[in-house]
């Protein structure tokens, strides 16, 4: 007797709430669309402002929002809270954990073989280089965002510093790539510390805004400092990298001539591929090593609880600065690679969109996870290319895919955290416990 009655009260209280939500959404839609859709303005034949109203379209849009809200709310109640247990059957989860164990080595072997398999497909090689560049950027930003928990929206600034450092040093002084590469990293790290100082006391949203501004400042300086950077025209004629002094071109002292094989432009692409792969693997190795060292543990502790860190005698200032500097250094390396690959750079390549893309890769991958970031870079950059055939709908499909992934795995593709030290057995730590950091 009691059960049906509670059932009815539940539905009864559900319908007004449902209508209320839908009504609020409809009102919001009305406010938004009344100006965007309801009134249409245009310049008349004599330059005067003419306008007319489109209340019919407005009404249908608001009605669609009202109906859609009800449908979505009903669906949500019907499906219930989206837990991973419910969406993914246990058998599949078990299989996935098995895949997870061998995924990283398999991916690495496949990556090493990419130039062999796709030797004649320039498009795929170029795409692979692009993906690897973003893998490296993602791993670099992962130190700042994933480990230290400091939300950095201006990461592209360090990418730009690295690229311009190499471009300017190489074109002005004729220094080789291998000398400029560490210099680009050091300069980017220096700028990382410079950004770090003013933002040390900031947290969360405030930190994000200042780092965002920093990224824009660097870009605007690059545009306006014409005498040094060439302004919007950028820097061109950046030297290509050499294999320890041996150029990869069609000349007599080029690599092909020295090895006695026929020259092909693909040689340079393959060389660039292995170069960025080596740089990315270096980033990965250093990050994994640092995680197991006191500095890396302090970064993660900082993400978990800054106050407790201070109570344990950890210098939070230097800890934050080293995180910024390390992340920035890898960004600088990637920038130098970008410059030598393109041969031409301009401020246009270093917009906020790049920062957002790299941050999306880190978040989608699962903050702090190296494998997750690599998979996310592959999904984001490769997936975006995959949908090229859909033309106009590319962004839409891509957006849906991202939303679905985030519903399915709210803490990223690889959400759990591996401990850095253990007594008996290393147990993965559930993402529910790991903090995102607050600044």
């Amino acid at each position, binding site marked *: 007797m009691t059960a049906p009655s509670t059932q009815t009260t539940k539905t009864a209280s559900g319908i007004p709430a449902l209508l209320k939500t839908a009504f609020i959404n409809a009102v919001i839609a009305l406010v938004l669309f009344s100006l965007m859709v309801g009134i249409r303005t245009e310049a008349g034949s004599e330059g005067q402002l003419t306008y007319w109203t489109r209340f019919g379209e407005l009404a249908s849009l608001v009605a669609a929002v009202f109906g859609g809200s009800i449908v979505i709310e009903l669906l949500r109640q019907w499906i219930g809270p989206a837990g991973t247990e419910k969406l993914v059957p246990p058998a599949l989860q078990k299989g996935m954990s098995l895949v997870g164990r061998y995924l990283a080595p398999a991916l690495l072997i496949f990556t090493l073989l990419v130039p062999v398999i796709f030797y004649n497909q320039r498009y795929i090689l170029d795409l692979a280089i692009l993906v690897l560049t973003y893998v490296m950027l993602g791993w670099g930003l992962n130190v700042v965002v994933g480990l230290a928990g400091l939300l950095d929206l201006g990461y592209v600034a360090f990418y730009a510093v690295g690229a311009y450092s190499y471009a300017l040093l190489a074109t002005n002084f004729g220094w080789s790539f291998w000398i400029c590469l560490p210099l680009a990293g050091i300069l980017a790290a220096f700028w990382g510390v410079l950004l770090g100082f003013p933002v040390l006391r900031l947290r969360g949203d405030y930190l994000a805004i200042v780092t965002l501004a920093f990224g824009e400042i660097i870009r605007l300086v690059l545009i306006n400092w014409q005498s040094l950077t060439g302004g919007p025209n950028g820097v061109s004629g950046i030297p290509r990298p050499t294999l320890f002094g041996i150029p990869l071109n069609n000349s007599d002292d080029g690599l092909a001539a020295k090895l006695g094989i026929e020259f092909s432009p693909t040689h340079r692409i393959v060389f660039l591929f292995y170069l960025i792969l080596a740089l990315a693997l270096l980033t990965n190795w250093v990050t994994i090593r640092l995680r197991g060292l006191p500095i890396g543990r302090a970064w993660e502790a900082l993400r978990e609880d800054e106050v*407790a860190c201070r*109570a344990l005698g950890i210098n939070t200032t230097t800890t934050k600065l080293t995180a910024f500097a390390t992340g920035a250094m890898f960004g600088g390396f990637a920038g130098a690679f970008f410059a030598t690959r393109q041969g031409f750079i301009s401020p246009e390549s270093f917009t906020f969109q790049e920062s957002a893309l790299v941050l999306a890769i880190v978040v989608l991958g699962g903050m702090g996870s190296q494998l997750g970031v690599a998979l996310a870079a592959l999904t984001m950059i490769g997936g975006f290319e995959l949908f090229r055939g859909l033309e106009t709908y590319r962004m839409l499909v891509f957006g849906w895919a991202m939303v679905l992934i985030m519903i399915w795995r709210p803490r990223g593709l690889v959400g759990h955290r591996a401990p850095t030290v253990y007594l008996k057995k290393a147990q993965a730590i559930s993402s529910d416990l790991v903090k995102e950091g607050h600044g």
Partner: protein
Amino acid sequence: MSGERILNVDQLTMRFGGIVAVQDLSFAAERRKITALIGPNGAGKTTVFNCITGFYKPTGGAIRLTHADGREIALERLNDFRIAKQAKVARTFQNIRLFPGMTVLENLMVAQHNMLMRASGFTLLGLVGAPTYRDAEKRAIDLATDWLKRVNLLDRADDAAGNLAYGDQRRLEIARAMCTEPALLCLDEPAAGLNARESAALNELLLSIRDDLGTSILLIEHDMSVVMEISDHIVVMDHGVKIAQGTPREVRDDPKVIAAYLGADEEEAMAVMESGS
């Protein structure tokens, strides 16, 4: 007070705008002793703690810490992490502050950060895997294991700290503070939320820290079974000022203390006591 003093708080005053949280508070803590700071809610106990451990900068007064070798440190001049690093004062928090996403062992390793940082040559030696660092890390794990045994958490070493039961988290926080090898351990309500059995185990742990390791303890506590049983000296605060101090027995019989806790005025408390005895 006869013994050697480790902490000397002199005329400590802390103001937040117009509110005086602590006024002209003076007390001392002896070496190898347990000193308790008690008082009703809002008496200013945690503010005193935050001044001692550098989370607040006192408006006035002096806080001196004397190390066993005679070195004196003015705590009011050091700030945040330096108090833990240089003055060797460790603390726990009223609302537990562990690193929930890190394992129990990792929590204790983070506590040994400064030692490990030096051993890793500020990361450079550690990055190349120098043997000196590996030895230091091994010693750090040994110390952590030792503490896990003491607080009875050894079999939970590889679990996430956030997964521990409340009482275990309390003990882990004390173990983490002790892994910094402090001269003075400051505990902010260590028995809060513990059941009778857990609180008895806590008493034993604190006594062993005092007797076996010779660490001085300063604690804030509401649980009188803990305070009265293990404290050597008690300081009672109310409304930011000291109202009494002495041994547990002296404090228990002090009418001012009873009045403060019962919320009545002195005469009434005297009357209550006289009728009781």
